[in-house]
């Protein structure tokens, strides 16, 4: 079993508390966050945030709780054969842009306000 999970969170930014809310959903359930990156997706304030979080028995609860947090549109758990957790720090491509790459998942489970997309990770 992988040591970590990669989570993609889509939500609407009101203030920087938006990011705190995401991280707190894991912190409250004793889950450690190894890496985080995110960006604004459109002019309506939609953001996507990626997190690498350590595996934990509370992971499912954290995802469900986050998926019903005001301003959070959707939470996706990205599935891999062996979850990549190394973060490439080189990023020598450009002096003018931030670069972040998320390895392509084999499958995705989505959670949004009680609606589960794809096979539920607990079933």
């Amino acid at each position, binding site marked *: 079993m992988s040591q970590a999970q990669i989570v993609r969170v889509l939500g609407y930014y009101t203030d920087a508390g938006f990011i705190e809310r995401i991280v707190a959903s894991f912190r409250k359930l004793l889950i450690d966050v190894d890496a985080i990156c995110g960006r604004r997706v459109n002019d309506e304030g939609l953001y996507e945030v990626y997190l690498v979080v350590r595996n934990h028995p509370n992971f499912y609860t954290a995802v469900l709780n986050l998926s019903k947090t*005001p301003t959070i549109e959707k939470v996706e758990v990205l599935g891999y054969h062996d979850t990549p957790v190394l973060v490439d720090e080189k990023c020598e491509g450009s002096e003018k842009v931030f670069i972040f790459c998320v390895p392509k998942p084999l499958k995705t489970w989505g959670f949004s306000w009680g609606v589960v997309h794809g096979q539920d990770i607990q079933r």
Partner: protein
Amino acid sequence: MRGSKLAVETLKQMGLNVIFGIPGLSNMAFYDTLVDYVTSGEIRVILMRHEQGAAHAADGYARASGKPAVCTGTSGPGALNLVTGLATAYWDSSPVIAITGQVPRSSIGKLSFQEADIPGVVANITKFVVQVRRAEELPKWIKAATYIATTGRPGPVVIDIPRDLFNEDVDENRVKWFDGFKVEGYREFPEIVDPFMVKKAAELLAEAERPLMLVGAGAVWSPAVEEIITLSETLRMPIVSTFLGKAAIPNDYPLYVGMMGYYGRAEANKAFMDSDVVLVVGARLSDRTIPNVRDVIDSKKKLILINIDPTDVYKHSSYLPVEAYIIADVRKGLRKLINAIAEVGLKRDRSQWLRRVIEYKEYYAKLYYRDDGKGLKPWKVLKTIRSVLPRDAIVTTGVGAHQMWAGVFWESYAPRTFISSGGMGTMGFGLPAAIGAKVARPDKVVLDLDGDGSFIMTMNNLGTAVDEDIPVIVVVFDNRTLGLVRQVQDLFFNKRIIAVDIGRATDFVKLAEGFGALGFNTQSYEDLEVALKKAMKENVPSVIRVPIARDEKALPTLPPGGSFREMIVYEPSADS
């Protein structure tokens, strides 16, 4: 239009016309605008004696009426004092709207006078918090907050407003009031009613040998008295409740067994243990209701859930034997199930099961209702109060032993008539919640069942009840100790009693009189009856002190982390 006027006008338009709170530097302009609305009678402003009381009062108002209520405090300490009340409302899913003043935008983050990062403080103990940055957005966020507070699983929201926004002039043409506003990233929960699941649930219940219905607070908020009783009658299915679910059905309904859980009635816990299929209606199955999940798993029972919150259902399904579920408001879900059961039909004779439950009730009654003649007994005190109060009286409680006695022995007859801090267990909840409930329902008798330790934490709000002519009655179970903690020390910490006993000096009658309320000291059940009748007749805030022996236990109980199989129903040493 000034920002403060925008804010108050929005509150009025949203029907939020009662505000519990305390003014200070950072909500001063807000209060200044309220002067006109109070003068015209459009909004009522109630000065509490501490902001914790303001949050509890708004909570009590919301739980008694089903409508949201507002509390407010100034920046820094004022807003920080709201925190316990907001957490209390969050844990019990109550729609409280807090408007907190904040230091001006130019001062934020500079350790300014009375500055506190309220969004940071409350983010994880409320349903939602927003710090407004532009005055023209005040209507938008007040509306959004109210919508978020009252939909889905209700909960408290906080609107933090830098005080310079209150003073800002806003071009009215730039203000978008309410038309078409959508809260991005917020949705009400979907209804998920799968006909296959409904049929499966109906068949499971129809074929069960020992079915049981467990009702929780969701059944109070819905409410669904008629549907619960119809289903119980149809299936001949006994009912137990969570602590906060007590008021979901009349407690004198013959098939109601009582509150189950950590301090629940033994017969309710036994019925739960013996049941083979449990229909869980609007309950989140907290560790207070089911302290040990082995009790569910080992007894091989099957659960059917009706819940408005799908994530609760998914969570429970991951570790409990959930066989079917309906995701909907309790009333709607029950109606679907009733229709399905009408098609399936009752397939089992339940007379043996019902007889067993009745035998449990009769057996444990002999253990509960003891009176050795030494002092006043909690069960008899509650029975006396019940006999005097009208059926539709609203009761709030503090937190402690008296609260557990109320859970076991108090009889509620209608939704929204039993109001207590269940999830957070906040001492001091009772009196301010009673004040809020009485403001919401002035036509009802409102009584706070309190303990001495709990009452003393927020009793300063008695002054509010007197000044504002809010005639609540407080009955103080005065055992001069933090009884529930003392009990745990006594039973599970080798009788090493520490830091719980309260001295004899505090005089509750004089304290009541000092605030301008009526004070009564009782020594007998007859005294209590007379005092209650007088308090109701005089219709003024009143405090009735009832002496209770310090070693009177709140039973049944369990050892910490224990199972229902380890219930302690009575003290072996207790005199019968």
